[in-house]
């Protein structure tokens, strides 16, 4: 007998598949199995980054473009900066063309030049916003703020809801614009929002001076029953049900004895390969160490954090390229670390083979240098994906030559247009067999971004 639920699913997936020419997405059980053991790292480059310094490099004064130069940038710490002539006596930078790659990068790209065979860059993302909260939300959820409120779950919530419910920490969010919004979400995947990773260990610490773990567990068990009763007595019971699930998660967390592992000192000791004493991104390095350790122990599904402060409107633009270099060096070092760690559940596999990284920002910066010698906000953007399911050594999307505005890149259902964040997020989640329409109102899957196997 066809139930309403399966009828809708068949109708939905069939229609979606028909529209984009893909075979229908698989059942929920298949999705879980196929993607068991995948991990996700989401990084938000806070403040809005200058894409002309890394992903969409520009070193010519053309149209309204003022390239970064020795007049507005301090290249002394930017190791990939090689002077190139610029009119007026200042120097701009040489474009970087890594050998064996068609990618062209800017000097802010840092360590990315060494891993071009593993990265996917998306340029010309149409943002239609230049406000920080709106841009951050749009990048993370695929929808703009509606009257100041978030209208859609963030990508880490979507992924955890599908693939992370059983993890001890489904999503850990350190200042990332994570959002838990929507009716079809499991309360276990409410992002665990913290200010710094060290607070996890402090929050999970328990003394044995007055009572012991079994006694506290006994209380937790009682509270689960109370929450169940409360849910039963309520017309809307999501919140009470959620607390019941969270009590269960808490018991698992405490039983895991991970408090010391996730202390700041413990993480630095476990991951000395990352650089913690940097000028801009020391805190982010600790977040990355947490991500690696948590994935290694198979206790998370998604780790999301914010990195840096790229909102350089004035003289602070001088160090923007340096800050970008630190960000991408950190991403590269994280990937290398994952390369060296065996997968916790897949014998013979490396963690990096099953970890998927997405780096976004709220928008990019103006192609013009402003009167303060910095750059303001601009409604264009780029993003970085490092995922075995995405086409590597590849760039998709483009901007125009004179104004750095997103260009139409393909025919979508709603016509020729530029790619936008909802398309990227829809493509990302679809790579794991998740129907984006379950969570997202907007966005189309862009199969050109995916490796053939993922697209199938």
């Amino acid at each position, binding site marked *: 007998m066809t139930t309403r639920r399966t009828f809708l699913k068949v109708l939905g997936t069939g229609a979606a598949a028909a529209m984009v020419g893909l075979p229908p997405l698989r059942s929920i059980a298949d999705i879980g199995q196929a993607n068991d053991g995948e991990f996700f790292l989401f990084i938000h480059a806070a403040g809005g980054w200058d894409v002309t310094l890394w992903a969409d490099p520009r070193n010519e004064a053309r149209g309204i473009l003022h390239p970064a130069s020795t007049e507005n940038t301090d290249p002394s710490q930017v190791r990939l900066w090689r002077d190139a002539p610029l009119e007026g006596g200042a120097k701009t930078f040489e474009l970087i063309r890594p050998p064996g790659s068609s990618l062209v990068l800017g000097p802010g790209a840092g360590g990315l030049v060494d891993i071009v065979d593993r990265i996917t860059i998306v340029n010309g993302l149409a943002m239609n916003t230049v406000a920080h909260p709106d841009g951050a939300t749009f990048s993370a959820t695929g929808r703009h703020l509606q009257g100041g409120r978030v209208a859609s779950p963030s990508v880490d919530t979507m992924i955890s809801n599908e693939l992370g419910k059983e993890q001890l920490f489904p999503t850990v969010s350190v*200042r990332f614009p994570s959002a838990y919004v929507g009716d079809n979400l499991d309360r276990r995947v409410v992002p665990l929002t913290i*200010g710094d990773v060290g607070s996890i260990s402090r929050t999970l610490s328990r003394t044995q001076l007055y009572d012991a773990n079994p006694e506290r567990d006994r*209380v937790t068990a009682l509270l689960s029953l109370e929450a169940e009763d409360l849910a039963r007595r309520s017309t809307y019971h999501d919140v009470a049900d959620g607390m019941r699930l969270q009590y269960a998660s808490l018991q698992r967390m405490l039983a895991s004895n991970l408090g010391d592992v996730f202390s700041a000192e413990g993480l630095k000791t476990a991951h000395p390969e990352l650089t913690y004493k940097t000028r801009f991104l020391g805190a982010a390095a600790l977040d990355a160490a947490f991500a690696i350790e948590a994935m290694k122990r198979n206790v998370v599904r998604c780790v999301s954090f914010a990195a840096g402060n790229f909102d350089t409107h004035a003289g602070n633009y001088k160090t923007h390229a340096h800050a970008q270099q630190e960000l991408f060096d950190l991403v590269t070092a994280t990937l290398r670390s994952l390369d060296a760690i065996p997968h916790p559940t897949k014998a013979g596999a490396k963690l990096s083979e099953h970890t998927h990284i997405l780096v976004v920002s709220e928008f990019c910066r103006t192609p013009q240098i402003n009167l303060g010698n910095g750059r303001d906000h601009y409604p264009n953007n780029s993003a970085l994906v490092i995922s075995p399911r995405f086409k590597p050594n590849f760039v998709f999307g483009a901007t125009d030559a004179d104004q750095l505005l997103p260009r139409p890149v393909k025919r979508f259902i709603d016509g020729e247009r530029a790619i936008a964040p909802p398309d990227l997020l829809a493509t990302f989640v679809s790579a794991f067999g998740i129907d984006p329409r379950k969570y997202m109102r907007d966005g189309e899957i862009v199969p050109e971004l995916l490796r053939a196997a993922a697209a199938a």
Partner: protein
Amino acid sequence: MRPSRGFLVASLFAASLSAGCAARLPEHVQAVSLPSPEVLGVTAEDSAPKADLRMIPPEAYMRTYLQLFGGLAPLDAQKLARGKEGAQLFDNWDAYVSALGFADYRTDIPRLTQTNALMVATFERLGVALCDRAVEHDLRAKPPMRERAIFAFDVLPAPGVMDEGAFGARFDVLHRTFLGYPRRLAPAARTTRFFQLYRDIVGMHRTADPKSRFTPEEAGWAAVCYGLVRHPEFHLY
């Protein structure tokens, strides 16, 4: 699950409509006035919008917590909670601020309005500190009742003779303290459940090794306190 009749009707209607539209040219429909439907009766409907329970704001949680700590300022409560044990029972407020869901206006991080597992863990950490210190202050030191923010009663003099009636009278004090209403209005199973918890904890403490700093009865009441300060009804409204 039985198919929803309404849904099937609607989808058949939609299917026939689209089929019909595809085949024929649009037609103009003349407006015709219809007679008013006959009113058979009137019934009231509660159209007030409903919503699920919400989390009490972190500010209200903290003020309540401090009130239960005897009306202390945060840094004084922190000092008292830490006592001589350093960070064993309580770290510092900075460690908990983010997990409790406070907004950070400096960095534009909005307040949390949903509980999550780490927040629930923080509630436990803070709740245990509060209850353990309250046992020491109220039950052990035995100040006058008006100075007891939580355990405004005396435990029975002889251990092991607590019956449900005696427990219930004391549980009512705690129920009012944390949940804001008398236990007589709570679901019937609650008092029994908590009494069982009390007895279980007392029993566990009698045989515990190493011994805790609490007597078994103190541990029992501490556990009842944990159960109420971490209760969904304490955190939601």
